[in-house]
């Protein structure tokens, strides 16, 4: 059945720099913001932008991710004829599964899924950024420019350009060059890894690219440069708003501290752009008589008897009397005993932190990620 636009959500990231947070879950499934998983932001953007035909490409440790996404109910993507489809590598080959070789290869290996909908346009997004974005506006921009491909870009500070893929454009935002992490940048427009292609055009490039043994089969490295070389119409689309790649422990923690700001552009309370996720139906949080809570986010099912400051509590966390939690992130089910002191700590799911434990990282240190294993080492 024909669809104007199909979305491919790349959720196969390993997220190595997130360390302990991704030892057992894929990066898109890492908890975020007190009740979400990172991928919820991209999926909610799809729903809010009315992009209802979504293929989610998973590969690394997908069990938690699949369980979280399920059939797509929270995002209204459990639909009859389109909706959300999880695409694991074996969808594509008859000889057993293979890892995707690059972002472009991931699309190539799922061409039959896309062709099922015979789309005009293909939207490619990734599942590991925190942002609100109306993909429909991007699509309309693409159509207005009659582009072959449109790349969403963000203005980054000039000193940080060397960390990004930079797009050099003419005044009307037509792209004439793509530079990966340039030392001498000509522009501060960084690619966000969000693309819209005319599917027929992209399809040809993917087929050609698949035959090149020296290619990395990557959009940024191979496909876009090839399109630019052929003088296709590639345009940049300027995104404005909050956007964060939570690719390191430090940036993961920073993004959480951002959420506590009152004037952040991205608001989780925005009723016109809700972020959807699973809900485990915990009761409302109970703030006890002895509690003191300020500058914090707290989710359902928490029982707080201690002091919270600049902290985020996911669902079903318990903080006992006399304990103080500062600048910390406590994942679902964490139990904190009495007289505990935590500062700049990220505690992983279901950890029990015994009475009188004191763990803190100083302001200039990376946050400490607690797992059941290292907790024993730290507290013994």
């Amino acid at each position, binding site marked *: 059945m024909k669809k104007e636009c199909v979305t491919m959500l790349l959720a196969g990231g390993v997220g190595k720099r997130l360390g302990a947070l991704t030892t057992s879950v894929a990066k898109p499934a890492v908890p975020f913001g007190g009740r979400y998983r990172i991928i919820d932001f991209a999926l909610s953007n799809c729903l809010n932008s009315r992009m209802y035909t979504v293929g989610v490409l998973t590969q690394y440790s997908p069990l938690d991710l699949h369980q979280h996404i399920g059939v797509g109910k929270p995002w209204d993507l459990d639909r009859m004829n389109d909706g959300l489809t999880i695409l694991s590598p074996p969808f594509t080959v008859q000889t057993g599964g293979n890892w995707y070789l690059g972002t472009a290869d991931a699309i190539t290996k799922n061409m039959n899924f896309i062709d099922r909908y015979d789309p005009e346009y293909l939207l490619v997004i990734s599942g590991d950024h925190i942002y609100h974005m109306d993909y429909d506006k991007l699509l309309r921009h693409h159509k207005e420019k009659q582009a072959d491909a449109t790349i969403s870009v963000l203005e980054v500070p000039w000193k940080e350009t060397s960390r990004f893929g930079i797009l050099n454009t003419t005044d009307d935002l037509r792209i004439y060059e793509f530079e990966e992490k340039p030392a001498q940048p000509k522009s501060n427009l960084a690619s966000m890894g969000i693309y819209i292609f005319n599917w027929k055009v992209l399809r040809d490039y993917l087929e050609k690219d698949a035959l090149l043994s020296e290619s990395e089969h990557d959009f940024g490295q191979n496909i876009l440069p090839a399109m630019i070389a052929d003088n296709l119409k590639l345009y940049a689309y300027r995104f404005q708003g909050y956007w964060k790649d939570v690719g390191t422990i430090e940036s993961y923690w920073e993004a959480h501290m951002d959420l506590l700001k009152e004037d952040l552009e991205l608001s989780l309370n925005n009723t016109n752009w809700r972020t959807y996720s699973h809900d485990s139906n915990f009761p409302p949080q*109970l703030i006890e008589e002895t509690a003191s809570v300020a*500058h914090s986010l707290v989710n359902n099912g928490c029982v707080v008897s201690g002091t919270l400051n600049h902290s985020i509590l996911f669902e079903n966390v318990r903080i006992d009397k006399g304990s103080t939690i500062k600048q910390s992130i406590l994942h679902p089910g964490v139990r904190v005993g009495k007289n505990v002191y935590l500062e700049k700590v990220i505690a992983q799911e279901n950890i029990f932190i015994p009475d009188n434990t004191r763990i803190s990282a100083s302001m200039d240190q990376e946050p400490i990620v607690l797992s059941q294993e290292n907790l024993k080492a730290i507290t013994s």
Partner: protein
Amino acid sequence: MDTMMGLINLEHEHDFLNELTYFRCGAAVPFAGRFRLIDFTLSNMAKSDIHEIAIFTRSKYRSLMDHLGSGSDWDLDRRHGGLFILPPDWNDPTDISKGDLRYFHNNRDYFLRGKSDYVLISGSQFISTTVYHELFQHHLTKGADVTLLTTTYDQLLPEHDACVKVKTDADGWVSSLANEPKNSHVFTGVYVIRKSLLLDLVDDCIANYKNHFFMDGIKANLNQLNVQSYHYDGYSAIINSIDSYYRQNLALLETDAYKDLFFKGEHVLTKIGNQAPTKYLEKSKVSKSLVATGCVIDGEVDNSILFRGVKVSEGAVIKNSIVMQRCNIESGAVLENVILDKDVTITRGQELKGAKEQPFVVAKRRKI
């Protein structure tokens, strides 16, 4: 396998909550920060492998329908079975049935079509978190015609006055159902009955111009029927008045009660609101309170319940109060012993104070 279908019968539940039930039926009244009264019985049924649930309701059911939606939040959006809101009548001029018997009579085919041989019937005023598997097993093992779920309250409260009290013999067979003021053995309104018997009793009642299935069909026939009791001893509450509503809400601020109701049994399923976690700002001072998600709090909240999306500005004070969805308490406002229905705005500096015995209730969407 023997299975049950569910029936939530709201016909004989009065709109007891004054301002709170002007525009909604009692079953749809918000409770405990994120639920509605009906969520408890509906969740209990859904978690008891009951996949076909009918609701008898006549009026003011739109907020109930809004709340229930397709039933998906209770996993009841099913192709086979699911959730059915059944109307009482059919414009049938020959129909002589009355009271809740009209529903049974006019929806007879619904019961016949269901594949289950047993029906679990409940109202919406008994609040508990449990599953009915053992009740059902008890019913089957005892070979009873009807089995009533009963419980005992240490202390009889005003809300128990209206309840039917139960006397049983040593084997649990019910010997008397009466409104005895001092009997603390209370019928919860939940019972199991064989479908075929149910339909026979309905016919009997209609033929005799009766109007209340339980009173006229079961209680009045207690001598002819084998009525068993099954005792429930978990946390529970009965809510059938403003007074009990207010008291039983605030009772959940005691840690033990909170944990008994919400963490010993099953999770209560309710409509998913997709609110953000609640945000506590710099000046927030919250204690002994139940707070739902989506709130933004910069004021003082004590011994109170905040529903989803409530905003409490700097300098506002809320005490012993129940504040429903999306209320906005502007800075300097003071509330004590108050129940605010949803979407109420309390403007800057306004003070409202009710009594513990009679909280001050503000109807929804008011701006004061």
